């Protein structure tokens, strides 16, 4: 059985933590802090003065203008704010500086505890070619491909002809889908290589690429791990993140329908071995590609908390952010591998300010109406509120909606119900898209892979099922209400006589009340 808190406390937790992030993940971390009796320190850029994470925090420090490069990415300003606030530790969240070894090192140099792995582990996993080499040495299966980053085109062509097509070109300097190209056949190699190199150069300042065998219709399945400073490493089973657009996840679930119990245990064992290979401390995620024959291959390790961590929390009952903080304070994990069980099914829908009917392009703006679902089995981790201006400067994520059910069907039905309750007016949000995806027969059947959206989502798919008159009726009633408000504010004698009949009519309506 799991050990109690008092038994494993090897010292006090922190008194104060600086959260070097914004939006929903900053709010999430501050909630964990409050539950642990730790004060939180927010940092904010100029337009974020009124942001939710600043309202949630116990203390807050300005760190510069809107541009992330001049605020949330400025290591010097963050360290200065941490020192001035008296924080003892820094939580990086995800994105921004969370996977920059230099930030972890700067914290250590300033006598601050970085809530995450060592700078050395971040560096090892950040170099994609180096990570592949390390993993292979640790007995972790990697996608067949070149061992080294390839500088010259001739080398790429040689490796490609030996390996055969289709294949993937990937940037050696970083991930996230940048500098990545699928090459179907030999005649397409030259132009794909040119494009991949140019993208890699502008994204990472490094145009070296490596070659991997292309996995046909892959599923993206990752394993959550936790390691402490006492040598314990456990996994918390898998999350499937195959529903992606532009190589970015939008819907995740745990467990995965793709793997059986034997594969699940094997992936967990391999993930722990991968983490051990870099002496991993904290929360991390080993990402795998799984092919149609359930063979799995190491993709990369994310050395931070993931966006989709709540679904693991929902099925295992472990608070991952609290675990991160306790581990950083030197506590031992409060449970062993056999204590961790998956219970039920959880799904996460990322609620983005983006327009699925317009190429999933960002659609920022002020949130005029916000109604958030609740009820049994629903969790909404939000970074916004009604009246908040969703800025063009940052990631368009608004919140993460998580549904838990005793089985997959119940989780899907519950999520559909919650999405139906979710109202966001102002920025265009992707709620209708999620309803479409979860309502798709292929999703219900678990027949998904990373090509799901490209294969099934067609323009106009969201138009089905809405009663065509309702938007018109809504707009008409709003226009009447607005006219009535204008008329009553102007009193019985409007200064400029509004000659349009509807306005006059509305005024009379208002006066009668």
């Amino acid at each position: 059985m799991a050990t109690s808190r008092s038994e494993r406390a090897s010292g006090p937790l922190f008194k104060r933590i600086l959260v070097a992030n914004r939006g929903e993940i900053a709010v999430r971390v501050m909630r964990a802090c409050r539950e642990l009796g730790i004060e939180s320190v927010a940092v904010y850029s100029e337009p974020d003065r009124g942001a939710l994470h600043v309202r949630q925090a116990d203390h807050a420090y300005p760190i510069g203008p809107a541009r992330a490069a001049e605020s949330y990415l400025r290591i010097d300003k963050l360290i200065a704010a941490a020192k001035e606030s008296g924080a003892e530790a820094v939580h990086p969240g995800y994105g921004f500086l969370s996977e920059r070894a230099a930030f972890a090192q700067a914290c250590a140099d300033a006598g601050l505890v970085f809530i995450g792995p060592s700078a050395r582990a971040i560096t090892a996993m950040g170099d994609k070619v180096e990570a592949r080499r390390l993993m292979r040495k640790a007995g972790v299966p990697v996608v067949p491909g070149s061992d080294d980053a390839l500088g010259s085109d001739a080398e790429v062509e040689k490796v490609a002809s030996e390996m055969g097509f289709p294949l993937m070109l990937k940037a050696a300097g970083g991930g996230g889908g940048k500098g990545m190209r699928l090459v179907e056949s030999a005649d397409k190699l030259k132009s794909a290589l040119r494009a991949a190199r140019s993208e890699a150069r502008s994204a990472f300042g490094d145009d070296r690429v490596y070659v991997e065998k292309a996995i046909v219709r892959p599923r993206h399945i990752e394993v959550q791990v936790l390691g402490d400073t006492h040598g314990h490493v456990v996994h918390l089973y898998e999350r499937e993140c195959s529903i992606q657009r532009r190589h970015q996840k939008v819907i995740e679930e745990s467990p995965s329908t793709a793997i059986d119990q034997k594969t699940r245990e094997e992936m967990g064992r391999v993930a722990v071995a991968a983490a051990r290979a870099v002496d991993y401390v904290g929360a991390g995620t080993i990402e795998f590609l799984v092919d149609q024959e359930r063979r799995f291959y190491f993709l990369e390790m994310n050395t931070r908390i993931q966006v989709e961590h709540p679904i693991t929390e929902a099925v295992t009952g472990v608070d991952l952010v609290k675990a991160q903080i306790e581990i950083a304070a030197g506590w031992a994990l409060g449970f062993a591998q056999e204590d961790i069980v998956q219970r039920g099914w959880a799904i996460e829908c990322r609620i983005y300010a983006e327009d699925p009917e317009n190429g999933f392009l960002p659609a920022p703006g002020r949130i005029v109406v916000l109604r958030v679902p609740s009820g049994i089995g629903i969790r909404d981790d939000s970074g916004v509120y009604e009246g908040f201006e969703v800025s063009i400067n940052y990631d368009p994520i608004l919140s993460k909606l998580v549904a838990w059910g005793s089985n997959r069907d119940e989780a899907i039905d519950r999520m559909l119900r919650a999405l139906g309750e979710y109202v966001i007016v102002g920025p265009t949000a992707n709620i209708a898209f999620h309803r479409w995806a979860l309502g798709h027969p292929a999703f219900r059947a678990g027949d998904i892979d990373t090509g799901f959206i490209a294969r099934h989502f067609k323009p106009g798919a969201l138009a089905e099922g809405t009663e065509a008159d309702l938007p018109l009726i809504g707009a008409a009633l709003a226009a009447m209400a607005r006219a009535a408000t204008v008329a009553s504010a102007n009193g019985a004698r409007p200064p400029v006589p509004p000659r349009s009949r509807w306005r006059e009519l509305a005024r009379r309506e208002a006066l009668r009340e």
Partner: protein
Amino acid sequence: MSSTRPARFTALVGEATHALEVEPLGEGRYRIAIDGRERIVDGRETGAGTFSLLIDHAAAEVSVASRGDEFQVAVGGRTHRLRLLDERARRRQRAAAVDGAREVRAAMPGKVVAVLVEAGARVERGQGLLVIEAMKMENEIGAPRAGTVSEVRVKPGQAVEPGELLARID
């Protein structure tokens, strides 16, 4: 019951146009005719911009935001954008329609990262005019018609608001 004449609007939804007639019947009830099809709607504003609707006892909820004659209506998780013109606005709009396609306006707030054409340049329909960055994504704005660029109103680095005039093509 009042005997006032109903309010009339022209609704523009994408390419489609609908004739709308709204007559308040009192007690939150309205007779609404859409292209002549009549429905009796019981509508209550339950929060700023949110309306609970009962139509033949069928319940629905819509949330609305508006700016000028532009309306955003959320129904079932989907945001519908439409314009609602009263009769005067409709006349103005007709007169302006000829010019509409000549103006290139920003669809969302963002920052101009590149201007691809200069005043005087001949452009084809769909040809890229400028690139606007919003939320770390770059979007190319294409010419709405073929013609000559008569002016470019923005410079790289400049922030733009939705609806702001970016360029004109004559």
